[in-house]
């Protein structure tokens, strides 16, 4: 955890980001005859696009640091969005979820959305911590189940007619502000508090953490709960931005979030990872998506490119891990 190493690992990812951005800039001038980067509108869109994924990725990062994984985020986003939206409807709409409930203060649907996410995360964490089942399984179960709940919640129909105050959460650059705030808070949590110290310790050497008296089970539950809560918040922001909630929201977001964390230098072996890296990782994803669209490259090529980048990030992680293992013994 030396300052130098932190800086250098963040610097490496930042260099990758600059490299990719520069590549699109050059290709932009060559192929499209215009700048890719020097376009405020495009940059704004990049940040807006990645904010929702970013909020999820922050939660997923700390789960991966404990050497866990959370595959459920995408569905938890949809489930939280549906429930939150049902409490955020304005009066006078023609498709009211709760006949008697409308125009609630905006804090209530926000709180409920986050709470639904926390509940899902708590469930993931409790099963992982108390049964010893690898987190891959319970979170995969939650991925399927939460999507089912999201569909059932309003019989597959979207929930529309949200209050103006609620829609404000998703308007303009609000999602970016929320993402940056979340990233900042969790950066402080991970680097400056007992919570962070123990999260790294568990991922680094669970046995050592256990004999040091850290309550592994309750800590894991807390980590997964917070990750779920962030997925819930992402759902709230997402439906506020879309001005409606539907059960198909957030599909495959869990994979983008994991990808962002891994690209940002979070080790799938646990014990290593930083929110700053994840933020850069998220921006890399956004730049790639936006860059390919800018060059009018087919969507499916984007997916292939994204896959290759994730793959190389994992290979780098594996290489680093092997080196550190052989170095320690």
């Amino acid at each position, binding site marked *: 955890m030396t300052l130098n190493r932190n800086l250098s690992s963040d610097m490496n990812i930042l260099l990758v980001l600059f490299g990719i951005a520069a590549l699109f800039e050059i290709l932009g001038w060559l192929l499209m005859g215009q700048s890719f980067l020097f376009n405020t509108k495009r940059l704004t869109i990049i940040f807006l696009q990645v904010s929702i994924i970013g909020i999820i990725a922050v939660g997923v990062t700390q789960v991966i640091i404990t050497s866990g994984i959370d595959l459920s985020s995408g569905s938890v986003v949809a489930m939280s969005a549906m429930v939150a939206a049902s409490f955020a409807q304005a009066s006078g709409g023609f498709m009211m979820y709760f006949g008697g409930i409308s125009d609630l203060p905006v804090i209530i649907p926000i709180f409920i959305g986050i709470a639904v996410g926390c509940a899902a995360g708590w469930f993931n964490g409790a099963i992982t911590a108390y049964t010893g089942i690898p987190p891959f399984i319970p979170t995969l179960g939650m991925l399927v189940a939460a999507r089912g709940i999201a569909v059932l919640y309003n019989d597959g129909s979207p929930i529309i007619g949200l209050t103006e105050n609620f829609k404000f959460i998703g308007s303009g650059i609000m999602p970016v502000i929320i993402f940056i705030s979340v990233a900042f808070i969790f950066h402080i949590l991970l680097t400056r508090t*007992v919570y962070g110290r123990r999260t790294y310790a568990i991922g680094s050497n669970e046995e050592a953490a256990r004999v040091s008296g850290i309550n592994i089970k309750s800590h894991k539950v807390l980590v997964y709960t917070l990750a779920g809560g962030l997925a819930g918040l992402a759902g709230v922001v997402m439906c506020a931005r879309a001005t409606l909630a539907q059960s198909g929201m957030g599909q495959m977001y869990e994979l983008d979030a994991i990808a962002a964390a891994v690209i940002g230098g979070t080790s799938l072996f646990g014990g290593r990872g930083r929110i700053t890296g994840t933020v850069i990782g998220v921006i890399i994803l956004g730049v790639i998506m936006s860059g390919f669209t800018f060059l009018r490259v087919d969507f499916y090529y984007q997916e292939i490119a994204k896959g290759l980048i994730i793959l190389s990030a994992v290979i780098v992680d594996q290489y680093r891990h092997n080196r550190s293992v052989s170095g320690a013994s």
Partner: protein
Amino acid sequence: MQNHVVLKTVGLTKLYGGVEALLDVDFEIKSGEHIAIVGDNGAGKSTFVRQITGVEQPTSGEIYFDGAQQNFASPIAARKAGIETVFQNLALADDLDVPANIFLGREEVYFNLGPFSFLNEKKMLAMSEEGLKRTAIKIPNLKNSIGNMSGGQRQCVAISRTATFASKLIIMDEPTAALGVQETSQVENIIRTLKEQGIPLILVSHNLRQVLDLVDKIAVFRRGRIVSVLDAKKTDGNEIVSFITGLESGEHENTTGI
């Protein structure tokens, strides 16, 4: 002070399912004493350590520490009472730095907000330096992560935990098993320093040369029982080995508390 009993177990038994890992163990260590625990693999040495350090709870039997009966529910409880343990598998988190490892599980904070308390890194760094000084350990940069250090340095960090916190009893489980010759002698020197300071120590070791060299008494474990407690000055390697392997007959008659 020599006859003040620090830790005593009476009839300590641990069953894993039907397996008797530890059977009716009576053990006693007095202040200032260094006692080694030896025995073959699976003889119950590590199981014994796990019971008296709160990592596991015994199936039956009593543990007395510092004059009072104790029931350590967790390693933290044992530590709070004053038992510090250096574990066999180097219980260190590779990705954390030296102070973070020394204070793992009992971090110094500015004010208590539960898990969200802010860490007092400055205080932990200063206390770590103090602890390392007391054990005469030199580590160039404490802010380096443990994973980048040599086996000896890592073990010294683990041991310096015991010096950072005032402890009434130190337990070391195979502290030199993974170390080279030089690093081993470094650790042995730390143990001698502890002896001079009068801090009681339980040393689990396979290394009979080391054991005979360092401690006052040797408790031999065999099949979950203490088969003999030998005076290090009056015994030799052959006698110890014969107890370890069970060549010395009459295991049951020789089972004494001390």
